[in-house]
């Protein structure tokens, strides 16, 4: 079946946008083809530095013919209305049909050829393409990510003719910018396109480029007995920066390895996009892998040497910053933090450090840390922001401070806390476990949350400019992973902030985390409704509740709770519920049984709760199940005798209260 091939050939597309562009092209093409009722067997897009390509296999030659019925005016409507309908349909009166007093036109819509449809669709896709940032060029009006030079569009081997802002579609493309013949060549099918590109030194598929980079880089390392340090993010990026990726090994002066490995790696990675290389023991080796875009006649010797010179200049700068920074102890840099604005409404970084220090000191003993060490680490934690090294490498904040602190001979736990207090920064980074670090990391994050909440800068929808959600998730992970017993209220109380809105915000974050771990978010709501602000306890309750509700007893007790709730709510709507305590009735047996069961259950629940044994508390509640079921089966709540009715309602209220000690079951779904 016929194939559609499209290539949008432009100047260099930013690497970070390529994958998204390929997915957008697939989505838009599928949408437009689908709307045109054209089905296909395979649709795939590819993105690279200079081209965005699409292949659609198994398309029909044309759309199916369709018959469409259009409703017209009523029979007997004014002549003008009928005349208008005839004009719009292009039919004569005798072509119309009459049904139930209304004129209908039956229109035959012959299917259009897929090529015709394509000629309409592609300009729509191109002109509405959702680039994160786009531009115009020359005197034209078309927007694209960078100037668009040519469009190749073939259906079943033939050019689909159309023009977009002066660019006429055709069947030509170009290969590599510098390698090969550098003349446009003709394309007839996707397979030919792919192989001919390859012979013109262009690898179409980003996955193939990645494989080529990894294979080449690993081979270059292996020849020297070294190992490539894997870096998926960098691999993704460099695969978008070369059409003919050619990994080369370059060398550096081993003397640079006296710099912290993070500094060397960041220089290589973020400034130069080089892969790091390690020796057999995993230590950084004095080499790097650069992924060039050409295979040069000299085997890349000039390129490797040129890159090595650039790296040396960068590392020389870094060494200069390192030695200059070390001339001043961190403590003396605090003054300079007064000149760094944290936020216009929240004052300077210096003021923020004061708050973090106070909070870290206040919570230290609750997390098993020495308050003085926690305070001293908090005071120095942000000092590296005004060092030359962090000025040059902002992503090394914390790490640089940790090195400088150690070099100054600061206490090890304090230096580690300075280094690690930003953790955990992503889902893959573990939460800190050292007590002093925990105190500073919590204080840092809580201060951010409290401060921004205090000025109303709370996250909304997808907007979270101050990354408060990440901070809250960090707090939750630190608390849970370390089994900390640190109520949120206690932390709020240690600050000058009122913490308004913070509890609900944490409930939301905890829900997200627990949902990611497979927990039901309604259970989190049910437990949070009790107002407990001890995150570890909340989670223990949720876990116990989940296990309980998965059991037969749990399901039935929940059903009984809902039934009791429905009755009580219905009665409450009629008038106030009786404010009486249930007493032991003379009968019937089922009512007596429930009263006795409640008497027996309540102290057990309380005892278990006091010991925070939520599973035990829930199994105590489970003992209510049979008596509650029997009660509903054998007792008429709405007794005509008022005293009986009141006592029965009181019993149900007590069941609800007993269960309410564990969670608000009314928020549990199912």
């Amino acid at each position, binding site marked *: 079946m016929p194939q559609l091939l499209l290539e949008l050939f432009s*100047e*260099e597309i*930013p*690497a*970070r946008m390529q994958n998204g562009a390929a997915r957008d092209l697939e989505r838009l093409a599928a949408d437009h083809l689908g709307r045109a009722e054209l089905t296909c067997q395979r649709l795939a897009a590819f993105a690279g*530095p200079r081209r965005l390509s699409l292949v659609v296999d198994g398309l029909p030659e044309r759309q199916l013919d369709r018959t469409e019925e259009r409703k017209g005016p009523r029979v007997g409507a004014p002549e003008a209305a009928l005349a208008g309908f005839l004009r719009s349909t292009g039919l004569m009166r005798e072509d119309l049909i009459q049904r139930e007093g209304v004129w209908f036109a039956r229109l035959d819509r012959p299917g259009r050829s897929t090529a015709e449809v394509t000629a309409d669709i592609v300009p729509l896709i191109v002109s509405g393409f959702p680039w994160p*940032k*786009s*531009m*115009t*060029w*020359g*005197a034209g009006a078309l927007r694209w*990510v*960078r*100037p668009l*030079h040519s469009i190749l569009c073939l259906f079943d081997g033939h050019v689909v003719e159309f023009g977009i802002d002066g660019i006429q579609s055709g069947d030509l493309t170009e290969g590599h*910018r*510098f*390698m090969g013949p550098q003349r446009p060549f003709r394309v007839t099918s996707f397979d030919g396109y792919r192989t001919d590109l390859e012979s013109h030194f262009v690898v179409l598929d980003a996955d193939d480029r990645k494989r080529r980079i990894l294979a080449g880089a690993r081979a270059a390392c292996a020849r020297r007995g070294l190992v490539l340090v894997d870096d998926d993010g960098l691999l993704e990026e460099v695969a978008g*920066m*070369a059409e003919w990726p050619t990994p080369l090994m370059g060398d550096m002066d081993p003397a640079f390895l006296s710099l912290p490995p993070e500094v060397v790696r960041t220089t290589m990675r973020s400034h*130069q996009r*080089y892969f790091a290389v390690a020796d057999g023991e995993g230590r950084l080796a004095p080499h790097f892998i*650069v992924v*060039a*875009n*050409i295979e*040069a*006649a*000299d085997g890349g010797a*000039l*390129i490797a*040497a*040129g*890159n090595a*010179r*650039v*790296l*040396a*200049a960068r590392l*020389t*700068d870094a060494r*200069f910053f390192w030695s200059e920074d070390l001339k001043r102890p961190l403590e003396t840099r605090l003054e300079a933090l007064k*000149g*760094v*604005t944290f936020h*216009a409404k929240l004052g300077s970084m210096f003021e923020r450090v004061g708050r973090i220090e106070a909070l870290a000191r206040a919570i230290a003993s609750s997390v098993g840390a020495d308050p003085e060490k926690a305070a001293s680490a908090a005071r120095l934690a942000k000092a590296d922001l005004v060092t030359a090294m962090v000025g040059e490498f902002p992503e090394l904040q914390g790490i640089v401070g940790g090195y400088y602190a150690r070099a100054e001979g600061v206490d090890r736990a304090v230096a580690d806390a300075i280094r690690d207090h930003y953790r955990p920064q992503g889902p893959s980074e573990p939460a800190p476990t050292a007590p002093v670090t925990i105190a500073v990391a919590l204080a840092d994050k809580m201060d951010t949350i409290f401060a921004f909440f205090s000025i109303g800068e709370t996250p909304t929808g997808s907007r979270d400019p101050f990354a408060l959600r990440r901070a809250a998730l960090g707090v939750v992970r630190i608390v849970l992973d370390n089994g900390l017993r640190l109520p949120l209220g206690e932390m709020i109380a240690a600050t000058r902030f009122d913490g308004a809105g913070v509890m609900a915000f944490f409930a939301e974050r905890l829900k997200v985390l627990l949902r990611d771990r497979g927990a039901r978010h309604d259970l989190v709501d049910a437990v949070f409704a009790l107002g407990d602000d001890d995150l570890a306890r909340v989670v223990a309750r949720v876990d116990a509740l989940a296990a309980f509700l998965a059991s037969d007893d749990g399901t039935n007790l929940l059903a009984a709770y809902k039934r009791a709730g429905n009755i009580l709510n219905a009665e409450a709507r009629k008038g106030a519920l009786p404010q009486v305590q249930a007493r032991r009735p003379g009968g019937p047996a089922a009512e007596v049984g429930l009263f006795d069961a409640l008497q027996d259950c309540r102290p057990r629940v309380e005892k278990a709760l006091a010991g925070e044994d939520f599973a035990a508390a829930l199994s105590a509640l489970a003992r209510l199940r049979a008596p509650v079921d029997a009660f509903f089966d054998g007792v008429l709540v709405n007794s005509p005798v008022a005293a009986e009715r009141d006592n029965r309602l009181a019993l149900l209220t007590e069941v609800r209260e007993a269960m309410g000690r564990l969670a608000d079951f009314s928020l549990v779904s199912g």
Partner: protein
Amino acid sequence: MTASKVLSFQDIILTLHAFWSARGCVILQPYDLEVGAGTLHPATVLRALGPKPWRAAYVQPSRRPSDGRHGDNPNRLRQFHQYQVILKPNPPDMQALYLASLETIGIDPKLHDIRFVEDDWENPTVGAWGLGWEVWCDGMEVSQYTYFQQVGGLDVSPVSGELTYGLERLALYVQGVDNVYDLAFNDPQSPDFKTYGDVFLENERQFSAFEQEQADTDMLIRQFHDMEALVPKLLASVSRRGQPLVLPAFDHVLKASHLFNLLDARGAIAVAERQSYIGRIRDLCRECALAWVKLEEAGA
């Protein structure tokens, strides 16, 4: 056509002049005011605005007082030289032209790794931004390549393509030298050979001290206020032919911009004030841009 011998610093400039002259550019002299970048020359900022075609190339000494290192750092200068090309509207083969210009100064793209790496350029003080790339040669940034989208806060049409070559970096690369002061300024075979250091080292030493240590900040602030007051007055005044004095007004915007850079290098601007200063210069620049566009459209 690969250059057979290694070019001196001035030969690189002369070669680029010849190259761009042959492609229809007017070859201009550096603007005779202190500026931080070649973009600020009115031949770029103002000429990028309005409907008229324009092609120009020139060298612009660019003063960055904060980057001064007293002549001690082999890679950092408080004044360096940009080779600036502006093509309006940008021709469709502008990338090819740029690459050909690199070949004329001795960078063979079949032996070196030339890359166009995403870089969204902006200059907030003149309200200008565009999309383009840093151009890398074997991992070193040698040029900035931009398609202007806005200047003076105004959308531009047609779009200008701007090329900014970092002349010192290119020369370091072409000559294979590690220290900027060791660059051959003229032909090493010439009877009076001069290095870059012979020509500029003393300037770096004296101006670093002036800009970072001696400049009188009270005076600079006064002068900044003077410039700020003068620009609107000039825009409201007219020449004998009735044209508003946009060009003199723009000169004073440039002076304000340099005064700001000096204040910054003296550490006299608090972080919180920075945005406000930049915003004030940008507003002045915008007024000039609006007046210039009006003038150009009237004369188009």
